[in-house]
């Protein structure tokens, strides 16, 4: 072991973890706690804000600052925290219902503003806490308690939506792949601005095996498309598949059928988000070949920094605020 400042236990709160046995949330919690322990950053400078849902219980279990807020509003509250104090690392933990259903508006606005928050979207394609209704990422036709004849709602593709919301960092990972999760956390942490990580999370009680095509021993090699910056996109046990992007979008081809030069070289920092968007359309959920990794990672000044910057400029231009002058600024007269 290297001598890091912290160990995982420094980030374990004294609260008993109360997810269902076998829930993917446990794995993500471990990944996050382990990751935080690798950082130099003082633990009191991390803040976790969540909404409501199974996922949103997360902050209770991490021994940092935290707020378990209300359903859907975590990005807004986190915006306040991040704008007030840009020195903090503000994490948002949310579920697919919390982030994309009731909280959809805050999500897209937080992305476009590039608020410096790290949003972990635990996508289990179901409402867990309320016991199994379909969510905005549930597949068409899904039968749940509230959709006994099958859901009619075309699901969102969260990565597409985030990219179109002008997000500067968008990634996807899988609960069970702790190494990959850690890499995504690291990249999001280093990103200056809003970062969204969609984490496929198994809800073994209400939506078990939703991600089996990406995690199953037999399926995963065929279906997992690893996105690596600067690399041509190939996948399959023997790299036998490749991805091509052109005027019709992205599509999967047999590596053997295309020239190496025609294989799309992944560039998450392309200022134009079109290729990232095209890649996000390769799958519409974990139902076949699905890209995993960083879709987009570009630079734009973060909201908190810019707000701060305007304060500094105003200060430089007008001097420090003086309340005595302020109340006289509209003109005054004297009675004596």
């Amino acid at each position, binding site marked *: 072991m290297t001598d890091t400042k912290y160990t995982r236990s420094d980030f374990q709160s004294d609260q008993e973890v109360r997810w269902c046995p076998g829930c993917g949330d446990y794995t993500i919690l471990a990944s996050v706690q382990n990751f935080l322990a690798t950082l130099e950053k003082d633990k009191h400078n991390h803040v976790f804000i969540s909404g409501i849902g199974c996922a949103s219980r997360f*902050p209770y279990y991490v021994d*940092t600052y*935290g707020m378990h*807020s209300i359903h859907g509003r975590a990005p807004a509250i986190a915006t306040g925290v991040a704008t007030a104090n840009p020195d903090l690392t503000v994490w948002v933990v949310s579920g697919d219902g919390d982030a994309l259903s009731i909280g959809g508006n805050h999500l897209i*606005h937080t992305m476009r503003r590039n608020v410096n928050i790290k949003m972990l979207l635990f996508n289990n394609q179901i409402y867990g806490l309320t016991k199994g209704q379909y969510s905005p990422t549930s597949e068409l036709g899904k039968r749940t308690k509230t959709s006994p004849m099958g859901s009619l709602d075309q699901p969102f593709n969260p990565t597409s939506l985030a990219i179109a919301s002008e997000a500067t960092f968008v990634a996807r990972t899988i609960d069970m792949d702790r190494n990959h999760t850690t890499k995504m956390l690291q990249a999001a942490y280093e990103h200056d601005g809003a970062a969204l990580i969609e984490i496929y999370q198994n809800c073994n009680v209400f939506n078990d095996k939703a991600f089996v095509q990406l995690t199953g021993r037999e399926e995963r090699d065929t279906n997992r498309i690893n996105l690596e910056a600067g690399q041509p996109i190939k996948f399959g046990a023997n790299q036998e598949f490749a991805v091509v992007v052109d005027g019709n979008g992205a599509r999967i081809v047999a590596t053997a059928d295309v020239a190496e030069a025609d294989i799309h070289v992944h560039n998450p920092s392309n200022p134009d988000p079109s290729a990232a968007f095209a890649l996000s359309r390769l799958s519409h959920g974990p139902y076949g070949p699905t890209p995993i990794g960083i879709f987009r990672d570009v630079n734009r000044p973060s909201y908190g920094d810019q707000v701060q910057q305007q304060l500094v400029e*105003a200060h430089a231009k007008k001097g420090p605020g003086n309340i005595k002058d302020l109340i006289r600024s509209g*003109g005054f007269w004297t009675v004596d």
Partner: protein
Amino acid sequence: MTEDTLEAPQREKRDRLVLRFAGDSGDGMQLTGNRFTDASAAMGNDLATFPDFPSEIRAPAGTLPGVSSFQVQIADWDILTPGDAPDILIAMNPAALKAHIDDLETGSLLLVNSDAFVERNLEKAGYETNPLEDGSLDSYHLMTAPMEELTKLAVADTGVKGRAMLRSKNFFALGLVSWMFNRPTESVIKWVTNKFGPENVVAKANIAALHAGYNFGITTEEFHHLFDVGAAKLDKGQYTNITGNQAIAWGLIAGAEAAKLPLLYGSYPITPASSILEELAKHKNFGVRTLQVEDEIAAVGVALGGSFAGHLGVTGTSGPGVALKSETISLAFQVELPLVIVNVQRAGPSTGMPTKTEQADLLLVMFGRHGEAPLPIVAPATPAEAFMSAVEACRLAVQYMTPVILMSDGYIANSSEPWRLPDTDEIADMSRPFATADGSEFLPYSRDPETLARPWAIPGTPGLEHRIGGLEHANLTGNVSYDPRNHELMTKLRADKIDRIADSIKPVEVDGPESGELLVVGWGSTFGAIRAGTRNARKAGHSVSHVHIRHLNPFPSNLGEVLSKYDKVMVPELNSGQLALILRAKYLIDVISYPKIQGLPFKAAEISGKVIGILAGTDSEAGQ
């Protein structure tokens, strides 16, 4: 007339005068009224204003819904309201005349822009014959001026062309009125020059029209009704003319400063609250962060996040926005963080009449949250008072770790009055140190023995890592708890904390006899009308007193005792009896409710009339 009288005409001294400017919303009536007000303020008058405008940005020219008006009362004593009926109505077109003539008492002055009384405009206003000619205005003192024609002539050399020339006609009117009421034109000229720059053609045209109007008064025989209102004997000090929204914005800045906290204001534009956001946005050099966000829910969310991080989080809106914020306010109450919610009320329900005033959100802010979640409520009585009310709201939020409601309304928001500038150094330090680690176990829900406030430990503080949330939590530790007794205890503790605020607020003061036949109780913007109305009734020999409540929850601790000293209690409100309901429930007194729900403030005469009716027994309408 000799040249002498021209230079210094005989002016009738009046102790107070009420002017109302009315015209098309495109005619610049608000601007005209404000300039007249400023000139009067500078002369030392006491004054109060009442702007009234349509909700359309520019409703169709010439129509009744398009009429915009601005009323100002100027006086040489400390008046309390913008006046009931105008002494002079300045009407820029037929629609303005039609919309306002009924408020004018017989014999009052009426100054009309005769050029606008052409067939098309008459028709738009619904006049079948020209009122300037058909004798229907005979009972008023009618004066006319061809303002458009004269304005065109006046601005001919300034470089303004075509229809744009007519845009200065409000300055012509202002010049004429300035002469009639002996207001100096310098402050207007200065304002115009500052606004447009000295070389700007619009500035030049406006100034030319202003002069032309003034000179038209001097040279035209018709305008022999000349009045003067002397300076008011106001308390010594420096004064500025201020609107309620400005006062709230500045008060929040002052409050944050007194709490030694940066101010973070989250908002979403909404009439009539937007100008608080707009004012605060100008003062970034005070370290004020203004966040215009996607909706009201986000607005209160960012403010709450700001407070969690150690700023003073404030959010401002009007009724529809308060409704939307309710769930998050409940969270703020539950996690016990400071937060100020400004509600600038407007006429509801739903979108209602957004530019009109009303007080019908009292029960909403008092009770409009799920679960037991009482909040302190502070309400200024006048625009000027709003400054200290905002400071007070900040004090309560920080000292008691609670969301606080600051209740204003459209009338306070837009009206103005002279404000005697406080010595801001004397605003008490109301800061509360953030918690720091002292080696012992940190208990986020331990409490200050006096205020019951919990410690405020902000992210970034070493050693105080902790989690808060909207689930019920155990006393002291804040760990999630479903224990029945704990829930009852926490519910009581949170309520007790709010009740304790009563210990730190001023008792209500009675204006009038300390006991007697009738007590009139008001809150918010009805202050001026109630104070003037009750004083008038008292002067006329009636036993009536007035109490105005500034803290609506908890009530000042002497309120019950004060109420018990009168035979009857009457509560005038711009709603259907909301405060009355609370007083009845709390004090079991058969309060007489006097509701007015017209989107308009009370007039002093309405109050005195009601008072006299009740005392005479002719008004038997009992409460509810």
